[in-house]
């Protein structure tokens, strides 16, 4: 399912002293099956943006289109239920939303609520557990007896059990240890590929955007500040710094190498080993003794 925002404005608490414009003339397009990253500093409008994707928020002005569903300002939306069945949102710290007695019941809660048949639910729970790499035996445990990382996987399995076509991830790796972060991102990427999902990742990690996303949108003060292929966007270092964002570490490092050593190395997502090779061969050009 493709995803389109067209001239969306969103104002919190309009007409009160707290009135606050969180999105301003925001437009973006994510083609079906592609992976988009949304980056911006705290309070730039990212969370407001994703709550529009499944109709938790309705635009104050403008249109949000998700596949065949249209959410328009000022109109009553009849098909929110269908839309929510198709869009899975993994909110920050989703494990705080677990509440059932067993892992199985928690994962089954969504599909049950949407009237999916028993046998089908059972199958979906099994599939979802497998997708998040938790063993079958887990299903009878209380989610509250699990570790933080496992609890998060259960919460994510609950989203996957809805068989969404659009998957929205709001900083899904926050608070995990480095190995856990990597495993989780690789899991999402695998699902994205296998299930042909349209994925929107809200992240602070330039590295993750660079590794997994087809496109990136940079948000600033509720507006779209930059958009494009991640590597191209991240090479605009000055612009990023203007909105308080850092560039991916490897680019920042190569910039320092260039300034200090006068050696320009082009970054094209080469591995660290290749980068080390580039560095040695560039720096080795010279008198060449030893």
């Amino acid at each position, binding site marked *: 399912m493709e995803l389109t925002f067209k001239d969306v404005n969103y104002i919190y608490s309009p007409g009160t002293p707290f009135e606050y414009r969180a999105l301003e003339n925001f437009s973006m397009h994510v083609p079906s099956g592609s992976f988009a990253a949304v980056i911006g*500093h705290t309070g730039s409008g990212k969370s407001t943006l994703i709550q529009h994707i499944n109709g938790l928020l309705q635009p104050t002005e403008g249109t949000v289109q998700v596949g065949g569903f249209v959410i328009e300002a000022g109109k009553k939306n009849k098909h929110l239920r269908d839309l929510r069945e198709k869009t899975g949102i993994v909110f920050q710290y989703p494990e705080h939303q677990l509440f059932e007695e067993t892992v199985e019941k928690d994962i089954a809660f969504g599909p049950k609520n949407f009237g999916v048949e028993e046998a089908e639910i059972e199958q979906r729970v099994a599939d979802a557990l497998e997708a998040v790499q938790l063993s079958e035996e887990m299903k009878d445990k209380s989610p509250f007896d699990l570790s933080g990382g496992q609890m998060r996987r259960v919460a994510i399995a609950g989203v996957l059990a809805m068989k969404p076509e659009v998957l929205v991830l709001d900083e899904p790796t926050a608070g995990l240890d480095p190995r856990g972060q990597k495993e989780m991102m690789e899991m999402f990427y695998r699902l994205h590929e296998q299930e042909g999902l349209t994925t929107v990742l809200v992240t602070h990690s330039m590295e993750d955007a660079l590794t997994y996303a087809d496109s990136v949108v940079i948000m600033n003060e509720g507006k779209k500040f930059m958009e494009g292929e991640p590597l191209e966007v991240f090479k605009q270092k000055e612009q990023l710094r203007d909105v308080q964002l850092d560039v991916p570490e490897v680019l920042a490092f190569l910039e*320092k190498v260039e300034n200090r050593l006068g050696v320009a190395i082009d970054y094209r997502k080469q591995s660290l080993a290749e980068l080390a090779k580039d560095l040695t061969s560039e720096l080795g050009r010279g008198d060449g003794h030893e």
Partner: protein
Amino acid sequence: MSEQVEFRNVSFRYQEDAPRVLKDVDFSIDRGEWVAIIGHNGSGKSTIAKLMNGLLFAESGEVRVSGEVIGEENVWDVRKQVGMVFQNPDNQFVGTTVRDDVAFGMENRGIPREDMLRKVPESLKAVQMEAYEEHEPHRLSGGQKQRVAIAGVLAVAPDYMILDEATAMLDPKGRQEILETVRNVQQESDLTLITITHDLNEIVAADRVIVMNEGEVWFEGTPREVFSHKEALSRIGLDVPFVAKLTEELRSQGVHVKEEPLNHEEMVEELWNLRSKM
């Protein structure tokens, strides 16, 4: 008497039949020191934090703060000295406005009203939230909530500050700013700072690092010493900074990097020195 926080053979488990989450943990932290505690999820880091201000009590062994063993009778005094910010500030908010919330800790400590009136805006300014005094804490974004929670602790000027993944929801720049703020306070006021984190920049900036693994102290040393053990760290699920990885790649290609660079500047200097020898 410069040792301010001491763990002496501390073991702990949450339930009697559960496995121990801390096993014979032994370390000390000096006054004014900044110590980062790192380790995989479930390695016991947060349990250590909770033992430091009496939210939990040791099953065996001793936890001392400012020389005194923490127990039921002195726990309230200890908590006045130890300010703590958790990963999820939602569980910590009490006030209906940001201002009330920051004032709450001071009120509890009986700080005079005129000081409170001065300190609330001061602390909010330090975390760049001065424009939000009247806002409701629950309506802020995750990162903004974390800033307010930190302001609340700064306001009471504790002797010890424990930040348990307290900047995890901030963007990298915001995280850096908050760290600088906290570090300045630490240096000006002799604050003992304990940060529990996965953030590599935060670890590099600390004076000393305690690495936890499966409930045990696995390694203690300066950031440079810790990150020179790349292989071993990755075996226990931890990462090392970009420059440490690059150093290893360069070495494996026969480039003789002498020191263990910890940041970009040091790495670039190494490359500068190596340049003619490549």
